[in-house]
């Protein structure tokens, strides 16, 4: 069943939804990356919650004009309008008052959502039939979706992705280096508006699939996941798109393969699984790698400090330093340095003298900036340079206790 779903064998609607979700996931991942890199990830949370009153009002208007009220395009237009108003309020609050952006986000989010709930209860009390579909906008529901709706979602996902692909150059420039971008003649504010418009587009298209509470996960989790795998910002965009598409596709397929597996939550959980794997196991930025690096680093620092203290006859107070020196056979149990210890200590101190000369030498300024107490001098200077330094230090001296 799952395999069928993954291979798009579950009927036209389910397949179309899966394709639409995949396109949407890719768009969301990419759009979200721009938000994430500008440190505005949670703006999407305000935008998505701000869609609710629009959905309700659009429904009421369509009913008032004798329509069905559940016309997906009408509802999506309504949600886009109210999301736009929410975004405008958010920007106005941060620009014209002393509120920080996080407070403005929270205010817009809660007030618009609260007002949306008021309108939902109005709709309920009107007793208009078939309003149940509106609750689907909270958590998303693709079960029993009409062919037309599925088509709208697929088309919307494709359109957003197309816009992103067309505009990727200026958007990338603005996200990573706004000053350079404006020097190149790109209007930063226009691109910013385009980004927000894309966030709104992704939100609106995603409403029916994942729901307004969870759509923000599609915009936030894939970029964060991608960030673990590369330091290159253009690659973050690509990886985020892939992570988003993958999560959305697997999620949509899983959800279609069994009952009681709502699409939105499943997509979010798949996305989180990808994130968790990256957090733990990514090379360099992953937690495991970082912990191992830190332990190694701490030992390096202690060992080096211990050697320098030995060479200068200073008192060592740190128990960890003493333990490490003993474990490496540099210090005897009674606190006397071993022969290797003495040799390594002398070398460490000599390197410090060499570094001091490097720092004082203006022609070696670039090299001096590399000093951090741990770097082996042989890795930054040639043998000739080191010999030259040693000549200036003079003949090796005994270090007095």
């Amino acid at each position, binding site marked *: 069943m799952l395999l069928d779903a993954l291979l798009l064998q579950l009927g036209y609607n389910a397949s179309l939804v899966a394709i639409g979700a995949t396109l949407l996931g890719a768009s969301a991942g990419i759009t979200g990356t721009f938000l994430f890199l500008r440190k505005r*990830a949670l703006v999407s949370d305000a935008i998505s919650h701000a869609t609710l009153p629009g959905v309700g009002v659009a429904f009421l208007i369509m009913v008032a004009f004798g329509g069905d009220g559940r016309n997906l395009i009408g509802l999506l237009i309504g949600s886009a309008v109210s999301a736009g108003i929410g975004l405008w309020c958010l920007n106005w609050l941060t620009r014209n008052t002393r509120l920080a952006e996080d407070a403005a986000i929270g205010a817009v989010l809660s007030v618009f959502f609260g007002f949306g709930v008021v309108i939902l209860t109005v709709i309920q009390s009107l007793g208009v039939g078939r309003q149940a579909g509106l609750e689907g906008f909270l958590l998303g529901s693709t079960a029993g979706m009409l062919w037309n709706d599925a088509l709208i979602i697929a088309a919307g996902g494709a359109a957003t992705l197309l816009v992103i692909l067309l505009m990727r150059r200026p958007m990338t420039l603005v996200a990573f280096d706004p000053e350079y971008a404006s020097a190149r003649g790109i209007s930063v504010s226009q691109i910013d508006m385009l980004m927000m418009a894309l966030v709104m587009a992704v939100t609106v298209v995603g409403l029916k699939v994942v729901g307004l509470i969870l759509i923000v996960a599609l915009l936030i989790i894939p970029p964060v996941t991608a960030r673990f795998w590369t330091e290159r910002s253009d690659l973050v965009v690509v990886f985020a798109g892939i992570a988003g598409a993958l999560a959305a596709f697997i999620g949509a397929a899983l959800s279609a393969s069994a009952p009681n597996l709502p699409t939105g939550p499943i997509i979010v959980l798949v996305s989180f699984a990808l994130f968790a794997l990256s957090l733990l196991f990514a090379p360099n930025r992953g937690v495991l790698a970082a912990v191992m690096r830190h332990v190694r680093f701490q030992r390096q620092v202690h060992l080096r400090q211990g050697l320098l203290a030995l060479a200068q006859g200073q008192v060592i107070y740190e128990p960890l330093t003493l333990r490490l020196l003993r474990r490496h056979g540099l210090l005897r149990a009674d606190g006397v340095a071993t022969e290797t210890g003495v040799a390594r200590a002398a070398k460490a101190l000599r390197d410090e003298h060499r570094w001091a000369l490097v720092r004082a030498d203006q022609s070696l300024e670039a090299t001096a900036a590399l000093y951090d107490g741990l770097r082996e001098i042989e890795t930054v200077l040639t043998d000739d340079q080191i010999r030259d330094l040693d000549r200036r230090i003079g003949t090796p001296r005994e270090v007095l206790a």
Partner: protein
Amino acid sequence: MMGEEFVPLSLTPLLIGICAAVACALPGNFLLLRRQALIGDAISHVVLPGIVVAFLFTGLIAAWPMMLGAAAAALVAVVLIELIRRLGRIEPGAAMGVVFTTMFAGGVLLLEQTDTSSVHLDVEHALYGNLESLIWLDAVGWQSLLDVDALRHLPPELPRMAFTLVGVLLFIGVFWRPLMISTFDESFARTLGVRTTMLGLALVVVSAIAAVAAFDAVGSIIVIAMFICPPAAARMMTNRLEGQVLWSVAFAIVSAIFGYVLAGYGPLWVGAADAVSAAGMIATVSGVLLAIAAVFGPCRHRAGSPAGV
């Protein structure tokens, strides 16, 4: 309005609404100044998985296990956010977004997978709460306030919420000085010997307790709105922390009263038959108050430069 109608039907929901609003607004002041305003948002999202898991463990729809589950979920969320922020070197907003959406998704999925059709446990309830239903049927009028028998049948949410409010008040009152100092200048607070990390965590825990207790009675919309809107509006009214806290309490009370009354009686005034969601209306009123303060408040503009400039 006559007491025989007001006391049984409206007095208790109003009081519960006020207590909930104030209990959230108080810590909200500090969260706002610490740039942690969205912690309230995160906490209220993870309440759902908390109560679902508590239900799965106990099989009960009872207040205490659900509140414990919600509180545990809030703690797990806060710890996870910190872990992801520190270990993954991710900015706090994004870390928050990852954690609360995932936990919320988990909650919805669990809810769909378990048979809760026989019990009153659903997403809408978690979001909207049910303030209107917290009525005091044993009351016959104002005189019931002195009637021990009737008092015994008060909705349990009222004493629980009042108790929570007292706890929050005590915390803010006792730790006022270190809270203020560490919010303004954390490094200085540390050199005074204030355990700032512990204090920050305590603030979040107290906020979580307030959120969970309030959520049980009024749903999570009010919780998010009250954490942010009254303190944000109060920020526009004064340049002193004491004043800001008092203003925020006033705004919270006004939101609760007006929101409740508008939700209950507003539709009748315009000729509609049914009341609308009180929780949603309270959040809406708080937003209107914030808008008014943002346009007319005497202290709405920044005075000093932010940190790091």
